[in-house]
């Protein structure tokens, strides 16, 4: 069994009906689990305090977020990455952002202070937020605050980011930290936001060799994704030997995602989640925290995260999807009701350039492994 952390108050982190980062995503997943007959209960976290936020973000930035949140003059909002189409400001955004941080921090506390091994946070994963800048829907970096807390408990942390976008904020915040390993698999920054996450970004100073990036070609499919994952991630974790694994489980590498170009299916996600749990069992004695993240196809993200919940709780992943759920969320599903909890198989027609994409991913993963040689052996 795993602990679940969630709060209905996460609804407040809402940039508006037209914005892709919708709180409906995890509500749909929870409702789907209920429809499947699971009695889902959760720990209700408290919002992170200002002091906890300041462990990662600068005072000047937090002040700016507070002022904007209270409706004060927003002339320099853009300097902080706020008031942009991606990360607009709304009244109360500061508390809403702190509430999400509180959830990931609660997960970290459970793992650090109790016998709890697996904790699933049904929110958070705001990996783009930087020390002094909001970016890509992210105001405060819940992952970084939680990881920082874990390191102050004396724990070494491996951060694994499977969101389709590079985990740039978390990497930058711990770039020179020797207690935190970051591993990000993402669509290549050559093609996708935020543009970083190349294999040569290896960290600085004491953190050199602990920041690992595996950029993948657009239209990479599950087979190739899992092949490169297998080449890099187990070795990286073994080499570092962390006490805790923190996973940002964005669902936007799914083929149906409207903002990115990888082509994983729900079946690939199931394999990936199972493998991550297995690695955690081997490397961190099972201590693992999952957060959500990107995932902008409501149809895909809600199913991927329901599958994640079932797997961390060692439950069966059923084939069918309750009709009542599909009807309840028909509007959000955009007329594309899923046939089952999993995608159809095959989920899409054969991909053009399939072989080229696989080869190129192999070459890039090979280059990354070459770059890691001095650090691992």
């Amino acid at each position, binding site marked *: 069994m795993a602990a679940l952390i969630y709060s209905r108050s996460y609804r407040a982190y809402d940039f508006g009906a037209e914005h892709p980062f919708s709180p409906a995503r995890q509500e749909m997943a929870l409702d789907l689990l209920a429809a499947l007959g699971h009695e889902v209960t959760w720990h209700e976290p408290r919002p992170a305090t200002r002091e906890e936020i300041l462990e990662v973000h600068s005072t000047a930035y937090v002040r700016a977020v507070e002022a904007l949140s209270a409706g004060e003059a927003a002339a320099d909002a853009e300097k902080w990455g706020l008031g942009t189409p991606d990360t607009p400001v709304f009244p109360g955004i500061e508390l809403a952002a702190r509430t999400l941080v509180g959830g990931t921090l609660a997960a970290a506390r459970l793992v650090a202070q109790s016998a709890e091994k697996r904790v699933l946070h049904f929110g958070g994963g705001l990996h783009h937020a930087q020390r002094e800048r909001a970016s890509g829907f992210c105001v405060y970096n819940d992952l970084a605050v939680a990881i920082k807390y874990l390191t102050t408990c004396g724990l070494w942390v491996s951060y694994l980011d499977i969101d389709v976008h590079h985990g740039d904020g978390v990497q930058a915040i711990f770039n020179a930290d020797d207690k935190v390993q970051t591993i990000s698999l993402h669509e290549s920054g050559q093609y996708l936001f*935020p543009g970083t996450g190349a294999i040569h970004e290896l960290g600085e100073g004491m953190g050199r060799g602990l920041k690992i990036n595996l950029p993948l070609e657009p239209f990479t499919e599950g087979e190739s994704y899992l092949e490169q994952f297998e080449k890099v991630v187990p070795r990286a974790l073994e080499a570092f030997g962390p006490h805790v694994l923190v996973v940002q489980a964005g669902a936007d590498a799914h083929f149906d995602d409207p903002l990115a170009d990888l082509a994983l299916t729900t079946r690939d996600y199931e394999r990936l989640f199972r493998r991550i749990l297995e690695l955690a069992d081997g490397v961190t004695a099972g201590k693992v925290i999952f957060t959500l993240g990107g995932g902008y196809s409501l149809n895909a993200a809600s199913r991927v995260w329901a599958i994640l919940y079932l797997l961390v709780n060692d439950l069966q992943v059923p084939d069918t999807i309750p009709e009542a759920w599909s009807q309840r969320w028909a509007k959000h599903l955009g007329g594309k009701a899923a046939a089952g909890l999993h995608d159809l198989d095959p989920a899409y027609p054969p991909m053009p350039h399939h072989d080229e994409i696989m080869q190129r991913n192999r070459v890039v993963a090979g280059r990354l492994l070459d770059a890691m040689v001095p650090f691992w052996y």
Partner: protein
Amino acid sequence: MLVRDIMSTAVVTIPVDGNVGRVCELMHERNIRHLPVLEEGRLVGVITDRDIGSATSALCLRPLNPEVLVRDVMAHPPKTAHPMDPVEDAARTMRTLKIGCLPVVEGEQLVGIITGIDLLDALLRLTGVDKPSGRVELCLADRFGELARLTAFIAERRLNILSILTYPEGHGDGRTVLRVNTLETRPLAEDLRRAGFEVLWPPAKPWQH
């Protein structure tokens, strides 16, 4: 971008009456490949690792010994750049002559050096990413106002263009690469297509045609 923006100013030099053995040492110590040669403080030539190699190799017809003077091996008169030359002028000169460096001279004074490596750094800066951003690539029609129409379209959506690179493709139309401060480049690309732009990246997904 001017030569002075990318040149190295801490220039390692060699006097014209130094010997090639010393040149070799300097190049190894400082991990460099090009030395401007000075005579009474004035630039009179350039000596490269290749000059040394071809002059002293046992494979050449009459190999020279390490005591040979720089003046007998150096290239002269040297090709130079001015600090206010556009970088592309320096690049063109180096490309045309197939040479690896240009000493930068202002009046009589050697003030810097620009090498192929500095040009690569410049390329990385021009194409680099220094703020989180998404990439949009278009093929713009070769007629007036197209770029203005594009930037106005993006400004209307309150997006900030962080870098823009436009280059000709050799058959009229030009390739334009934008970096924009948004994660939502796919919806932006769809809007651009609807407004009649030819967007190359991000493409429509094969299964969403």
